């Protein structure tokens, strides 16, 4: 069985499909703690709650800041599509209005973190071309190129062979390396191997954001009604 898995897994698209299959869940919720370390070692700590319903390409997610106090209530609604980039709206209590995040603005950092708005999307495997580049240290190195509009021209993905988890991403634009994302501290949660720590390094800014997952749950009974623009305004 192991031999069979390794054999079919030489196709990079199948590897990524297997990554998605193994991490698929109907819903997810976690509380995230973010530590942003900027140039000059300025540190800012933020917290958010994240809820998702659906899975890759057909999911919706709602992210709400809970700390620090001045950003508490700021929320982001992400509606992912199988065939195109997501729709995103941000809600700021201070102005009492939702604002659509335009596609060309997705490379912007999300609220002072090193995640861009695009990094918060969940794109389906069908939106990329893949090429297997290497096979060492128990990991596959795969090149991924998006079909649709993206700030990234291509990315390198590292996938562990033993459990099909993504452990590292290097994302490049035309001008070079933009972000490095490291996935660490994997735990089996709801039968899904999940990185409990994600570190994003913004190369140009020399800053990094570390996201730690708390109270992670999968396959909760969430409702579609809680992932709409009205829900964003109610948050």
């Amino acid at each position, binding site marked *: 069985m192991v031999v069979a898995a390794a054999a079919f897994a030489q196709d990079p698209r199948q590897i990524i499909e297997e990554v998605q299959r193994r991490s698929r869940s109907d819903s997810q919720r976690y509380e995230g703690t973010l530590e942003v370390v900027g140039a000059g070692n300025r540190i800012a700590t933020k917290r958010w709650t994240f809820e998702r319903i659906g899975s890759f390409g057909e999911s919706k997610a709602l992210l709400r800041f809970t700390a620090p106090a001045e950003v508490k209530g700021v929320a982001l609604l992400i509606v992912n599509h199988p065939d195109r980039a997501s729709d995103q709206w941000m809600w700021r209590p201070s102005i009492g209005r939702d604002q659509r995040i335009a596609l060309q603005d997705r490379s*912007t950092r999300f609220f002072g973190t090193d995640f861009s708005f695009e990094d918060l999307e969940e794109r389906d495997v069908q939106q990329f071309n893949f090429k297997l580049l290497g096979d060492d240290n128990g990991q596959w190195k795969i090149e991924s190129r998006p079909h649709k509009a993206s700030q990234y021209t291509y990315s390198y993905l590292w996938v562990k062979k033993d459990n099909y988890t993504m452990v590292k991403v290097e994302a490049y634009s035309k001008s070079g390396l933009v972000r490095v994302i490291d996935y660490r501290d994997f735990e089996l949660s709801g039968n899904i191997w999940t990185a409990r720590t994600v570190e994003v390094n913004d190369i140009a800014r020399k800053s990094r954001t570390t996201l730690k997952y708390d109270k992670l749950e999968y396959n909760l009974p969430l409702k579609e009604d809680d992932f709409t623009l009205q829900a964003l305004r109610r948050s």
Partner: protein
Amino acid sequence: MTAALFALMLAQNFDQRGFIEDQTLVYPQIAPNDSGNIVNQILLRWDASYQLTPWLKFSGSIDARADSHEQTERVWSLDVDDRSIKRPAFSLRRASATLHKGKFTAELGRQFIRWGKADILNPTDRFAPKDYLSSVVSSDFLGVVAARVTYESGSNTIDVVWQPLFTPSRIPLLNQRWTALPSEAQGIPIFDDGARYPGGSQYGARFNHIGAGYEASACFFDGYNNLPYFTATENISGVSVQRYYPKLRLYGADLAVPLPWFTVKTEGAYFTSTTPGADEYALYVIQLERQVKEWSFVGGYAGEIVTHSSGNPLEFAPDRGFARSFLGHASWTLDANRSLAFEAAVRLHGSVTKAEYSQAFGQHWRATAGITWIRGSETDFLGQYHRNSYGSLAIRYSF
């Protein structure tokens, strides 16, 4: 045990946030009706909400204020209608119940309703009176007592609002610098003779559609202008000025189209009135916006077309005052804690330019320093405030 469980339930469903802010405004120049150079104001704002059931949520917000320039009432009773000439010392900013069932959401009570898509001026935003008391060029929103029902189905949303109690915008005090009197009126005692508030209710509806490459709305409003016209009565001791609020009907629309290089947003409204002495006009905005790395740019033009002019000069209309302007905003996020922002409105005979630096310290503190520079002639809406350029420093503790 039961009490502990109840307390835990309360804690899980209760949410709150707020801040206390001290702001100092420094005016290098005195004005003919205001010799004060420094104004200090302190504001405590507390927002709380309680989710009683999955479909019912209560939200409340209160403000407590004090200032050094007699802009705030000295009476410490809770103000619930927010109609006073001065700011209430203690006011109920929001008190509403939100009911949610399926595709329907209803909010009842004092609440904030924002319409429109543009960022630099919103002609369709008619359920959003503002507080212009301490600065005409930088204002805060006031809540309104209303019932709002929203039906959302897929990419379409219908919003229906009924506002039974009128809430006016709060205008500058007659004896302070943001009431710019014409030179011929200087030296004449002017008395505030109160306001004639309309008794009828207001209502409006808005339809919003989200397409794959655009977002568009159409809206209708029937009610009253929350910005006043004035009647002036000459008497033996001076001139008495009374505010009144003309009928207003609005037909509006807005559109946002994200293009590959920037997003185009446009918003327009045509205003009619059956009140004698009120103008009929259209306001429109077209703006482009773009984010480039840590920079955010918004720029555009706000225009006005007057279809019927009554020739009544006695009105306070910042929305029209900012029209016929080129407007721009740029902000730069330096890092997670620091930001810079620039804003400008340029008319033919007047302009306002703002620059602001903001920095957070730790988890709770933020300091914001700014300069607002106003130039122009006295006949221009912005230019009439040319003595009111100011520097500001705000220290905020958020909790």
